[in-house]
Each structure stands twice: as structure tokens, then as C-alpha cells.
């Protein structure tokens, strides 16, 4: 079990450029989550997929952020026209189907995005 895989591990973009972050969840996990981590805000929820369907994107900045899950083996987070305030570590997590056992989320190593 390789765990949650995120690529790239580091990405540097210029202001106004696009950034696409990739996540491969643990095989068999049907729930995928994206979080953003900064020193100031800590860990913030962005969006959530269950069985590839978008369930909740209430944490996503609406104008420039989008996420997809085209198949059960990967999800992408796209940031258009990146701004310096988007600089953060973006974490992907996956879990078994949610249920009464409050499934554990397994986090990937994160992608550190730096917008210059």
C-alpha cells in the first residue's frame, strides 16, 4: 500500500499562471478530500468527493479554484490565475466509505505551492 500519492511535491508558479495538483487516493477508498495548510490558517477544508461525485466544495474559493475526480484513481485541484495568497501546502486525503465508524482519513505528503 503506497498510501496517498500527490504530485508534484513542490510547484512554483508566477502570479497569474495556472497550477494543477494531482492526487491518487489509496486503492479502494471511495472518499477523497482536499485541504489547504498555511501557518496562519492551519488546515482548511476545500472540497470532498464520494465515489467520484462532488459532494461539498464549500471551502473552495469560487472564482479560481476547481476540482475534479474523473476516475476512482485520481483527483485534480486546479488553480487558475494563481495569486501569492494561494501559496500553501495542499493536502489530499482519502478514506473508506463514510459511515458510522467515522472513517480515518489518510493524508498524502502534500504539494507545496509557491506563487511568486
Amino acid at each position, binding site marked *: 500500500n503506497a498510501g496517498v500519492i500527490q504530485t508534484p511535491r513542490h510547484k512554483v508558479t508566477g502570479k497569474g499562471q495556472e497550477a494543477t495538483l494531482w492526487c491518487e487516493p489509496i486503492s479502494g477508498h471511495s472518499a477523497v478530500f482536499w485541504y489547504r495548510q498555511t501557518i496562519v490558517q492551519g488546515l482548511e477544508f476545500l472540497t470532498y468527493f464520494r465515489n467520484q461525485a462532488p459532494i461539498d466544495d464549500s471551502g473552495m474559493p469560487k472564482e479560481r479554484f476547481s476540482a475534479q475526480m474523473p476516475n476512482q484513481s485520481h483527483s485534480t485541484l486546479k488553480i487558475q490565475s494563481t495569486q501569492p495568497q494561494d501559496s500553501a501546502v495542499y493536502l489530499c486525503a482519502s478514506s473508506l466509505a463514510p459511515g458510522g465508524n467515522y472513517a*480515518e482519513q489518510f493524508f498524502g*505528503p502534500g504539494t507545496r505551492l509557491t506563487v511568486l
Partner: protein
Amino acid sequence: GDSVTQTEGLVTVTEGLPVMLNCTYQTAYSDVAFFWYVQYLNEAPKLLLRSSTDNKRTEHQGFHATLHKSSSSFHLQKSSVQLSDSALYYCALSEGNYNVLYFGSGTKLTVEP
């Protein structure tokens, strides 16, 4: 909405001494679970403890926490810290089947020799 509060941003403790990291919450839901995640330097957050049962002590890796719904708290404790416990600790909650984690701001624990 739900919120989790960790009042200490930084905690420094001498090796061998006890520690308690505070976590309080606000939620309108009754079917809620609570978690402590630990993040070591340059690593991903990992689950340390979880609980959804009122007044039941949960233990793992020498740490323990008890959910007290009467005081809306889920404090993390250890009786004797080790240098290897130095890390960032996050308290979080999720609602029933929903599973989205709402995190507190985190507490950085530094254990000194």
C-alpha cells in the same frame, strides 16, 4: 457552523513531564466524532486518536483523551512526554456520516531535554 478551538499555539515541555493540549468545540449536531491528528516535521498528518463516546477515555501511543460533551472538550494528555513527541497536533471534528474534518488551528508541541 462547527468550530474547533485550540487555545495554545505553542507549548514547550521538558522531557518526562506531563502535557495537556486543549481542545474545545462548538457544534449543533449530536452525531459528531472527534479526532487528534499529529503532524511531524515534513510529514503528512496522521490520526492519533478518535472518539465519539461521551466520557470514555481513548488511548494510543501513550496519549489519551476523553470526550466531555458537558464541557464541549476533547483535551489531549500524556503523562510523560518524549523528545519524539515534538510535532504539530490538530484537534478536529466531523459530523456523522459526512466525514469532512474541521480542524482547530493546531498546537506545536516542543519537548526539550
